[in-house]
């Protein structure tokens, strides 16, 4: 199915059908998530109401890593199979991943101040997420750094693949090193240690963020394909130079 959709014309048709549905469901899911997070969920017995920051911080963190998985996988496909949509997908996703990572960093800082007594600390978890943010920025800069878009996207794809080493470091940083950040409480051996009353709002918010990513990804991929088509039409519309204007090379 993926290889069938991975044709720009088919992609435009399929995404054109899916996009209105996604654009309708996403705001609903996010609104329900915000309602659950800000009103329904109980305050934490230790952290009080400040725990509500978790409902943006954790989904943003999940997306920060998940979008990077997507960028790296698409970059791999672009490098190995030279698939035209893979490059477009990776480049459409990278700014979204950078945005989620920035949200994760800022909300984490705003949570750390009252709970840890500091806005920032150079511990393993925080530093490895900051590195992820710079990986995104590097990818975006590299993809746009060359006049020849093909060279830019190849260089960026290589960077994306090298950056994959940061993902397990982020995930396991809280186990490998003694960090200020708490260890995993959702995806851990032995099941989640977080109560249902908080897990449900968290999952709804995470799903809302995933839907937001899917919506914006399709929108940005369609934009890239439109812009590519515009460039092709503009090039074909340029009249050929008159014969006597071409340099004589003999």
């Amino acid at each position, binding site marked *: 199915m993926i290889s069938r959709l991975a044709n720009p014309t088919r992609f435009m048709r399929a995404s054109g059908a899916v996009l209105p549905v996604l654009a309708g469901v996403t705001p609903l899911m996010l609104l329900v998530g*915000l309602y659950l997070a*800000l*009103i329904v969920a109980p*305050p934490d017995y230790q952290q*009080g*109401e*400040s725990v*509500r*920051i978790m409902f*943006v*911080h954790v989904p*943003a963190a999940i997306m920060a890593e998940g979008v990077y998985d997507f960028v790296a996988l698409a970059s791999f496909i672009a490098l190995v199979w030279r698939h035209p949509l893979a490059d477009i997908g990776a480049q459409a996703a990278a*700014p*979204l991943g950078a*945005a*989620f990572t*920035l*949200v994760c960093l*800022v*909300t984490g800082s*705003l*949570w750390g*101040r*009252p709970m840890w007594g500091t806005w920032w600390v150079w511990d393993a978890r925080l530093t490895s997420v900051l590195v992820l943010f710079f990986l995104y920025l590097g990818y975006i800069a590299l993809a746009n750094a060359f006049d020849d878009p093909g060279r830019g996207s190849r260089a960026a794809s290589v960077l994306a693949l090298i950056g994959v080493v940061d993902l397990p470091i982020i995930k396991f940083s809280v186990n490998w090193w003694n960090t200020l950040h708490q260890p995993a409480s959702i995806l851990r051996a032995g099941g989640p240690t977080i109560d249902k009353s908080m897990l449900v709002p968290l999952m709804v918010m995470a799903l809302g963020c995933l839907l*937001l990513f899917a919506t*914006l990804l399709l*929108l*940005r991929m*369609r*934009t890239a394909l*439109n*812009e590519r*088509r*515009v460039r092709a*039409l*503009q090039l074909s*519309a340029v009249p050929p130079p008159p014969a006597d204007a071409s340099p004589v090379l003999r």
Partner: protein
Amino acid sequence: MSDFRQWAAMGGYAAFVWPAYGVAVAILGVVAGQSWWRYRASRRALGRLQGGSRLRP
């Protein structure tokens, strides 16, 4: 204190909870808005070119 004001005070953490939500909405909102604006611009540009080429034989 009214229920709303008590809720808005976030148990004394209002100065951290609301900026966290505000920043998240602002960052994601800017990215979503930019994506949508650029999509519309690309559709308009494509429509102009394709409309123009249809006029010419």
